[in-house]
């Protein structure tokens, strides 16, 4: 009788076995499939302007101010709850898409506006701006390539407890807090050293110290006032308002293929209602975003129309996506190799690897 082989668990660290394997297999920093689109049309879609993001940011800031004012006014009564719910989602969830779009430099045409929004939204979503700028750069280079992508939300087998804790950003915030202390002491973690260049590291240390100083000031304010109200406005909303971050964020790649060089196979595009699209800044068009990251959020619906015939059928709603994601994650707990295979339209061919590639599994 032949011996049976048990697959080894994947190594998701950036300095482990699968990092070396991805390089050996030629899927690290590789060329990815792009849907064909005429250059003139793409140029039109890539065009930057300040108008849409100025309008959306004005609405966002006004909603933050009004909901905070309501929360403060009704503090101590149950009437404060809906105001803090709105404030929390705007602060702790929709800051994710603002962080993301401004990080790409595509939200505004004017560079400094992107930078201001990037730093403010990074603080709100409790991410360190320099670390995450570089981790997200790597995520775009090596989307869901095991051992290369630092932003794989659901490694296999999935850690369901961690996912549940992150509904209120508990595990992720604890990790960030630990990182802040490490960075404030002038050190990086080994994984981070693989993607943050030497010349950028001073920013990591400086921002960590600023974040900790702000949190210390909030704690002092709470003690001084004898109330958690200051923390309800700054700091805690990243937790109590963070649930929409994971609700939107998990739909991007969870349960789809790893180690393929075709975003149509490892990324979802989902149709969402206008409110969700405002909160999420059109990142529901996620295949389109990954394939053409220079296209601003407000042009993604037009890009979707341009390339949809070359892409899998979009999910009709977030709920529809979760009907696939939840059973897939639960099955992956027992069968880590299981994943959803996206079907392309008739006549379209997936391009998981570059021509001539030979992919060797981990030994």
């Amino acid at each position, binding site marked *: 009788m032949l011996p049976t082989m048990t697959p080894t668990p994947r190594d998701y660290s950036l300095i482990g076995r699968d990092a070396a394997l991805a390089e050996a297999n030629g899927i690290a*920093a590789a060329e990815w499939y792009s849907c064909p689109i005429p250059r*003139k049309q793409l*140029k039109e879609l*890539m*065009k*930057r302007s300040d108008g849409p993001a100025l309008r959306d940011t004005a609405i966002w800031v006004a909603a933050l101010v009004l909901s905070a004012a309501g929360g403060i006014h009704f503090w101590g009564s149950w009437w404060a709850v809906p105001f803090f719910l709105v404030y929390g989602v705007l602060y702790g969830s929709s800051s994710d898409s603002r962080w993301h779009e401004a990080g*790409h*430099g*595509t939200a505004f*045409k004017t*560079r400094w506006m992107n930078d201001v929004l990037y730093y403010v939204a990074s603080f709100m979503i409790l991410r360190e701006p*320099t670390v995450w*700028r*570089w981790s997200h*750069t790597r995520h*775009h*280079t090596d989307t869901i390539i095991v051992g290369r992508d630092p932003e794989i939300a659901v490694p296999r087998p999935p850690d369901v407890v961690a996912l549940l804790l992150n509904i209120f950003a508990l595990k992720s915030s604890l990790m960030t807090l630990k990182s802040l202390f490490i960075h404030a002491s002038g050190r990086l973690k080994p994984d981070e050293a693989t993607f943050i*260049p030497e*010349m*950028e590291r001073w920013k990591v240390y400086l921002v960590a110290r600023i974040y900790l100083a702000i949190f210390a000031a909030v704690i002092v304010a709470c003690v001084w006032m004898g109330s958690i109200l200051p923390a309800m406005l700054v700091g805690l909303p990243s937790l109590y308002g963070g649930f929409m971050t994971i609700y939107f964020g998990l739909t991007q790649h969870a349960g789809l293929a790893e180690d393929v060089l075709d975003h149509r196979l490892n990324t979802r595009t989902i149709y969402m209602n206008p409110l969700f699209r405002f909160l999420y800044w059109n990142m529901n068009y996620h295949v389109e975003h990954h394939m*053409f*990251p*220079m296209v601003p959020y407000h042009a993604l619906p037009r890009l979707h129309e341009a390339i949809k015939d070359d892409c899998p059928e979009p999910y009709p709603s977030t709920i529809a996506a979760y009907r696939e994601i939840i059973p897939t994650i639960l099955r992956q707990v027992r069968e880590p190799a299981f994943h959803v295979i996206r079907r392309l339209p008739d006549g379209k061919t997936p391009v998981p690897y570059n021509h001539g590639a030979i992919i060797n599994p981990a030994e």
Partner: protein
Amino acid sequence: MPEQWINACDTDDIDQDDVIRFDHDGRTFALYRTEDDRFFATDGLCTHEKVHLSGGLVMGNIIECPKHNGRFDFTTGKAKGAPVCVDIATYPVKVEDGRVLIQIA
């Protein structure tokens, strides 16, 4: 080493405010035309992760890489911020009789 001017393309091959790829002798370059009809050349691949800049977006004197949105001033080669940290090589360009010529050392 003598000057080597390479006949790269017609001026009309590049739209205003745009960039094209030009391959020569195993090397790849990016050729730019500004809105006011000035022509420039740089190495073709981003210094960050070797992506062809010809797929990127020209905004004034800036070329933005199509993969990670890193920016260079293509008239000087200067890197304009993360994720590009290393300047890109530039090459002299001249226009003669409607042709764009690039000087490659």
